[in-house]
């Protein structure tokens, strides 16, 4: 079964291994490898602008995946993800600046530090669920934001902090072209890790906690352990994403990690699809490209009557925020399963292509 090249019209799996495999067919695996290979060529023909967007999608996508593990797979709500993302950024900069730890090592260490902080705020998570947890993480968002602006030794206070570029064996990845590869490697590794996590015993436990936590507990799943673990994993991903962000921009300022940013993360996973690994990346791409598309529309409309009536040029910042809110609402009302679901439907259509009934 593992060696067929096309998906059969129906479910003919006879072993659990076939059900949990990452790539159901040879073709899908080849396509995934081909996709990564094509991405490797990107810096050769993309200009800086597009590379910048791709890198953004990369590091935000890692953090969004973390949030999706927490929200989509474990069913815990976090409204403080941006604060953890920020913590990762600052810790990586702090580690490499204050202790001279090489950046390549500081990034995973920043992930570990963020995990520790995430677990700290995850202690209430062990007892709380749903709504109460949402409010607890809201508090975490404000407390951490306040901490950033106050802890001069850690974040450089209001002035922000400089982060070293990513270097490996003396080669500095300080251009968009080279940093693209760093992000790509991290994205591939982190996404494979998450996919494998979800195939494992622990991953299934997380999903069980989401689907019905009482039944899960009765089946012998330790709720406290898995809720806290999920919080920790999610913070780890946020920390890695944040650290990559820090070493990409080479500067971290305290202002960026607001609640709006947290909501944007939630928007990404809702648009992409809660409980879908690749959906996280699709949602991130959507969220990153949304302002660009809006910018393009505004430019296209400039000079017309609509522009004159609404004064679009000055309004673009607010229009972006409005679009984020609107997109979240529209997706929840009309496509609650997100882009990943759409993608599945497209695939299902082609699976049965000429005879779809």
């Amino acid at each position, binding site marked *: 079964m593992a060696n067929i090249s096309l998906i059969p019209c129906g479910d003919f799996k006879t072993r659990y291994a076939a059900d949990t495999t990452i790539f159901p067919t040879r073709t899908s695996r080849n396509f995934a490898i081909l996709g990564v290979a094509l991405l490797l060529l990107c810096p050769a023909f993309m200009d800086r602008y597009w590379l910048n967007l791709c890198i953004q999608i990369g590091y935000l996508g890692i953090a969004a995946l973390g949030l999706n593990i927490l929200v989509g797979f474990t*069913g815990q709500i976090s409204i403080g993800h941006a604060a953890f993302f920020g913590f990762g950024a600052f810790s990586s900069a702090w580690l490499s600046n204050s202790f001279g730890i090489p950046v390549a090592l500081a990034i995973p260490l920043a992930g570990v530090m963020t995990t520790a902080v995430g677990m700290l*705020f995850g202690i209430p998570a062990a007892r709380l669920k*749903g709504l*109460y947890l949402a409010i607890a993480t809201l508090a975490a968002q404000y407390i951490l934001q306040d901490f950033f602006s106050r802890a001069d030794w850690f974040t450089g206070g209001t002035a922000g902090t400089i982060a070293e570029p990513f270097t490996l064996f003396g080669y500095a990845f300080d251009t968009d072209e080279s940093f693209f590869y760093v992000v790509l490697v991290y994205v591939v590794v982190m996404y494979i890790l998450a996919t494998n996590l979800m195939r494992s015993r622990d991953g299934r436990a997380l999903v069980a906690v989401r689907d019905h936590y009482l039944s899960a507990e009765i089946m012998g799943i330790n709720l406290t352990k898995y809720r806290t673990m999920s919080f920790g994993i999610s913070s780890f991903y946020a920390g890695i994403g944040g650290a990559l962000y820090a070493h990409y921009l080479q500067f971290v300022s305290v202002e960026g990690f607001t609640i709006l940013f947290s*909501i944007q993360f939630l928007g990404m996973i809702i648009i992409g699809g*809660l409980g879908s690994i690749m959906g996280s990346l699709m949602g991130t791409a959507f969220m990153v490209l949304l302002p660009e598309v809006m910018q393009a529309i505004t430019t296209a409309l400039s000079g017309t009557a609509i522009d004159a009536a609404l004064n679009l040029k000055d309004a673009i910042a*607010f229009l972006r925020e*409005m679009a984020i809110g609107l997109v979240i609402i529209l997706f929840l009302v009309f496509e609650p399963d997100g882009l990943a679901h759409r993608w599945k439907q497209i695939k299902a259509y082609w699976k049965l292509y000429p005879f779809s009934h």
Partner: protein
Amino acid sequence: MTLLFQLLVNGLIVGALYGVVAMSFVLIYKASRIVNFAQGEFLLIGAWTCWWLLTSWQLPFWIGFPITLAFMLVFGIVLQVVVLRPMIGEPIISVIMVTIGLSIFFQALMKWMFGVFAKPFPTIFASPTVNIFGLDVQTVYVMSLVISLLIMAGFGWFFKYSRMGLAMRATAFDQQVAQSLGISVRHMFAMSWAISAMVSAVAGVTVGVVNGVSSALSFFGIKVFPAVILGGLDSVAGAVLGGLIVGVLENLAHYLDSQWLNWGNMYEIAPFYVLIVILMIKPYGLFGTKDIERV
């Protein structure tokens, strides 16, 4: 010592406003089990509407204010019917996210329409301060306290004696039973949003008169969470008490901070530390009902 006393009075006045907003938050939660993250935006929209009526149309306060309230009533109903009604039966995260989406949408819309800078209300009272027991208290504060108390009393009467209030309580208690008694649950949901929007707008206008209208008003919607968690999510009386405690507490924290600690910004952050502590010790608040789950 005078400073401390002044801060306590301030805390009680602001706390009463928190209580009012928390009450309207609890109203929605009780009736429809929706946690409304857009509560602060109700304040914002109400305040801006009133400000717009008073400045652009030059209406006197006693005409502009009722128009604002009427608008908020309609706004609340429309919002519930158009956005929240399709969400009935969806998982809790979806509903929370819809209200968060609404919150950032309206916040940005208001910034777009009215700008980002605080704008002062036209003067409503002839004398800016009144002297109460030797303390200079701003007239608007007195007004806000009176309004808050009136709203609280009004809520008390509404839920105890009025037909609709009783119907609403029945709906909150058990939707199916309420329906079998001939109460229109959909109607009650819409009304709870309408009343909540209206009451929040009163608070919004009051704060607007004191501090000027700006998007900072929507922070009230966030500050409400410590208050309602402290009081218990589904307790109206708890919401009032929680609001008062949070109001006094943040002023005390401010006092402590300005006198000894000098950390800065404690005024804003202290309630959130308290929130975390409460959630750890007593997650259902002082008066909230504890969820008992049966399989």
